[in-house]
Each structure stands twice: as structure tokens, then as C-alpha cells.
């Protein structure tokens, strides 16, 4: 075909619009590059706003499914909406690749669901090992009360215990909580060696600032979800010394990363991209590569099969391979905030 259509459902308005807007920007970068590369066909992406609302998410899913020209779909942002939409894609045989959906059951819905994100089954043990290596035996863990937060606590706690450590404290907070001081005091009372946290940058910044206010020096570890320059912007000095994992480093000298970072900066007043836009950028490129492999006449089924065959895709978030159960296996890097920047830690 001359033009291949893809759908992208994402929150462009509403409380989570900041993420959706970033995804669209990343997708546009990827798409412009792809179409400029002189391929024999062009790809078009239809963006639809889901507001992180399952109602709208399923509506969009039906809309995409109706459009016979659409051969693959990206998104949604939250697991809830992705899962609801996935029910539609499952029945319609539409490949769906989410850049962020972290629900453990998401890829189990059908063979059409893929994701480009390190799961907590991978990230939790990785961090647990890291902390154990640092000698933190007695740790506290908190996470937002979402499906993702649940998997953060689950994946991490099991690994800690397996490593012979103890989880001294474990609790969930409601996303968007403003005041963590009560929770922090409570954590401190359990006297942990370190705190492992499952939050996005907004909640993270508040948490770190209030930790500093209360004069607490317990080391903090976190996941790649908090990896955003906004974390440092919002938390300032309070972010200093936070340890986290990531699979994207804007400082990585490799050309594709630098190219992405440059393009991003051009479109964002010089801001540096964080983890999520990078995941979205890679997700789009993985999808585009699959479409290309499904040429000359890509169908939904062919695109799905092509996606499933993704091996060692060289993205800005490292090499991506889809396992048999359509999970991305990612290489993680350790990062620490030092001098107001994310700095890789070699250990």
C-alpha cells in the first residue's frame, strides 16, 4: 500500500494530558523521520484523545477497528484504559502496542497485546538486588495505589525476601496525594535502611521535598517511572542522591539517542526528554518497523506477527525483544541524581 494508517489513543486533555501530549510529540518525531527516509510507502498516525477515561478509550478502539485501513494501534497511557480498549482489539484482531501499560495481565488478554515497558517483575528484583548489594537489609516500600503500584510492591517485596532482606514497611498512597509528611513520619518510625518508592515524578517530587523538610536522610530508591527531568525541576535539591533505574539516558552518546534528544529539544524549548517519551518514541518505531516488515500489503494479522518477531530492536531505551508472551525485555541502567542531573552509576 502507498499509505499505511496507524491509530494512537492517548490522553491529550484532562489530568494526564501532559503524558499524552509528550507521547504525541515523540510519535511525531518518529513518524517524520520514518516518512522522510524515502520508503516506498508513507505511514499516517491518527491520534485520538481518550482523556484517560475507559469510556472514551473503548469508543476510540471501536473507531480504530472500524477503519479498515488502520493496521495497528498504539496506546493507551493508563493500564485501565489500555485494558478496556484491549477487549475490543482482542475481538477485532488488532495489534495493540502500549508504551506504558504496566498491568501484569495486560499482555495476557490476547496475542494482540504488546508493550514496550520494563515490567516490575523485572525492575523489582533488579532494584532489590542493587539495594541488597548496598547493604540495605531492612527496607520500606511505598507505591501509588494503582495497578502499576501494586506490581511495584509485589515485584520488589518478593525479591527482597528472596535475597534474605526484610520489608519493614509497606503501604500504598492515593495518586495525587499532596502531603506525604504523615506517611513519611510513619515510614521513619519503622527505621528502614532505605526506602523503595513506586511513584511518577509529580508525586515523587512532593515526597522528596517533604522528606527533606522533615530532615530525613534515609536513602531513596525508585523505578524508571520517576525518571523525568521534571523530577529534578520540581524537587530541586531534595532530589539529590535519589537512586533509580532507567533504560533511557539522554546523555547516552549513541547517535540514535542523541538524534532523538536533539529533535525533542527542538520541539520543547530545550527541555530534555524523560523515560516515558523515550518509551513512546521506541514503541512507535517498533510499530513502524513491524509495518515495514509486513509490506507490501500489511494487514492487522501480518503486523501482529511482525511485531511478535521484533528482535533486538535498537531503540533509545536499549535493545527490545518481544518474548513469547509479548513482553519487552529491557536492559536497565542504574542512575543517581547528582548535582541536579541524572548520572549513571557504574556498579
Amino acid at each position, binding site marked *: 500500500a502507498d499509505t499505511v494508517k496507524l491509530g494512537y489513543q492517548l490522553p491529550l486533555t484532562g*489530568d494526564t494530558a501532559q503524558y499524552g*501530549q509528550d507521547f504525541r510529540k515523540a510519535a511525531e518525531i518518529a513518524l517524520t523521520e520514518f516518512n522522510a527516509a524515502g520508503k516506498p510507502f508513507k505511514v499516517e498516525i491518527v491520534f485520538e484523545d481518550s482523556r484517560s477515561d475507559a469510556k472514551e478509550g473503548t469508543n476510540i478502539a471501536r473507531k480504530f477497528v472500524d477503519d479498515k485501513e488502520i493496521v495497528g494501534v498504539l496506546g493507551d497511557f493508563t493500564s485501565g484504559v489500555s485494558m478496556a480498549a484491549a477487549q475490543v482489539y482482542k475481538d477485532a484482531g488488532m495489534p495493540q502496542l502500549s508504551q506504558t501499560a504496566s498491568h501484569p495481565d495486560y499482555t495476557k488478554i490476547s496475542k494482540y497485546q504488546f508493550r514496550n515497558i520494563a515490567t516490575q517483575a523485572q525492575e523489582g528484583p533488579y532494584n532489590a538486588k542493587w539495594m541488597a548489594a548496598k547493604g540495605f537489609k531492612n527496607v520500606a516500600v511505598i507505591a501509588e495505589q494503582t495497578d502499576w503500584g501494586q506490581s511495584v510492591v509485589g515485584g520488589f517485596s518478593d525479591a527482597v525476601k528472596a535475597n534474605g532482606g526484610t520489608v519493614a514497611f509497606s503501604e500504598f498512597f492515593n495518586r495525587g*496525594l499532596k502531603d506525604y509528611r504523615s506517611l513519611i513520619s510513619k515510614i521513619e518510625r519503622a527505621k528502614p535502611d532505605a526506602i523503595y518508592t513506586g511513584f511518577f515524578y509529580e508525586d515523587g517530587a512532593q515526597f522528596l521535598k517533604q522528606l527533606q*523538610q522533615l530532615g530525613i536522610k534515609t536513602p531513596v530508591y525508585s523505578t524508571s517511572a520517576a525518571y523525568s527531568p521534571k523530577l529534578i525541576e520540581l524537587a530541586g535539591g531534595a532530589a539529590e542522591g535519589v537512586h533509580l533505574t532507567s533504560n533511557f539516558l539522554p546523555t547516552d552518546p549513541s547517535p540514535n539517542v542523541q538524534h532523538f534528544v536533539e529533535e525533542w529539544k527542538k520541539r520543547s524549548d530545550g527541555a530534555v526528554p524523560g523515560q516515558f517519551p523515550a518509551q513512546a518514541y521506541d514503541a512507535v518505531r517498533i510499530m513502524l518497523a513491524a509495518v515495514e516488515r509486513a509490506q507490501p500489503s500489511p494487514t492487522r494479522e501480518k503486523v501482529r506477527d511482525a511485531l511478535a518477531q521484533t528482535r533486538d530492536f535498537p531503540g533509545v531505551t536499549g535493545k527490545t525483544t518481544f518474548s513469547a508472551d509479548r513482553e519487552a525485555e529491557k536492559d536497565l541502567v542504574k542512575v543517581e541524581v547528582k548535582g541536579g542531573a541524572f548520572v549513571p552509576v557504574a556498579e
Partner: protein
Amino acid sequence: MFDPYYLQQLAIGLSLGMTYALMAIGFTLIFGVLNVVNFAHGEIYTLGAFAGLVLISATAPPIVAVILGALAIGALAGFSLERIAFKPFRRFTDEASLKSRAMRESTLLSSLAVSIVVREALEIVFGSQMRSVPFDYLINTPVRVGPVILVTGDFIIFGVAAAMLIGLQYLLTRTRVGLAIRAVSNNPLGAKYVGIDTDRTIITTFVVGSMMGAAAGILMGLYYGAVFPAMGFTPGIKAFVAMVMGGLSSIPGAVICALILGISESMATTFVSSGWSDMVAYGFLILTLIFFPNGLFGARRERV
């Protein structure tokens, strides 16, 4: 001796309660005292915060100027809000309309609609992500009081809230304007008969209440260091709950209930868990209403 841990939690609860109280004061003035259903107060709060932020990033003025700027925007926003979403519904004088439930609730929807438009517009202009406030402006330097750690902002918020409370209480009970506000809220038609300019009284109340809302917004922005379009939502609900729990028209009542809410949340976090803390706060509200069906400080219903 008493475990300082509980003292600390109590202090945190109080400080949280003060932040709710700050919002509740302006909210109660418009919704409770003036008795108009206003769902857009949260957006005024947000506008105040953004006004302050814009001012800071544009000219980096002294903090007092920032607050004055927010107050000015609050006044303007309150004025426009009243003009757009409330005044049009006072054009009806026929009896069926005056006594119609639908008419009375129409400002619920008009203010809701205005709040949607304002929030969406803010999102389009500023994006929906959190914006950081430059660190020099933050009011979160830790202060140690005995075994308890607070921040400077707690004292500033306490001072501002106390000033607002006392000022409003004085205004409402000691001045002609306050009397007029209460008269308009009690019986708008009667107010016309005694020569009160009802339109002006309502606008004045909106302006004053919105200025307080905007001041609350910028203070909270400086306190937490983050400003974003949806920031008014949660405090709005808390202020609403505090207002009703306090008995609707009593501003001190709303403040006390805001403090109760804050403390019950921090105590719930302490003894139960953070996730369930709102549950305790709402449970407390229901309990209060069972025993005080008109709120803690509410007037009894009129006689039959």
C-alpha cells in the same frame, strides 16, 4: 511521656488542616454565607496560583507583590465569574421560576461549565503538567518547634488564614456590608425592599471570596512548590466538606472542621494507612452529620 511521634503527626494534621481551611474560608463566604451554589471556586484558586507563577517567572517581584498580583486576578476572576455564570440567572422574577428547584440549581451547572472551560483553557495554555515554582519563593524552610518539625509556610498560612477569618468575621458581624451580605443571602427580595443594592452586594462578596480563593491558591503553590490546572479539585472537595460539616454559613465552623479533617487524615495515616485516610475523614463527616444534621455550628431549621 508522650511519644513525640504522635505530636509530630498531630502537627502535620493541623498544618494539613490549615491548608484546607485557607481554601474553605473564601469558599464558605460565597457558597455558605451568600448561599449561591458555586462549583468554580477551585478554578479561582488555580487561577490565583497561575497568576502568581506567571508574575514570578516574568519579573521575579518580591513575594508581597506576587500575592497582590494573585489577589488582583482573584478579584477580576470573581467579578467575571459572577457576571458570566450567576447574574444572568437573576433576570427572572416570575414566581414559578423563583420557587423552582431547577432554577435554583441552574447556577450549579453554569458554574460547573465555567469551571470546565477555565480548566481546559489553562491546560491548553500551560499544559497539564505540574509547573515548578522557583525555589527562592518557596515557603518550606523547616522550622523546629520542640520535638516537632514544621515549615515556615505553616506559620504563614496560619497567619493568613487567621487574618482572613478575623477580617471576615468582623466584616460579617460588625459592618453594614456584612449585614447586607447576610440579608441578601437570607432573602434577596427583602433586601431590595430595604434599599440594598443586591447586585453590588453579590459582586462584592464574589470579589472578596475569590480574592481569598486566589490568595489560597498562590500560597499553596508556594507551599508545595507545584502549580497545575487540576490543583483546585481536591482542596475544593475538602473545603466543601468542611463548610457543610461546619454548618454551611459559619466561617469559623468551616475552619474548625477543616482542621478536624486534616487531623483525622493524618491520624488515619498514622493508625490505619495512607490509602484509607480519606475513608476516615469521610466517615467522620457522616458521623458528624448523624449527630448534628445541620453541621456542627449550623442554625436549626426555620420554624413551620
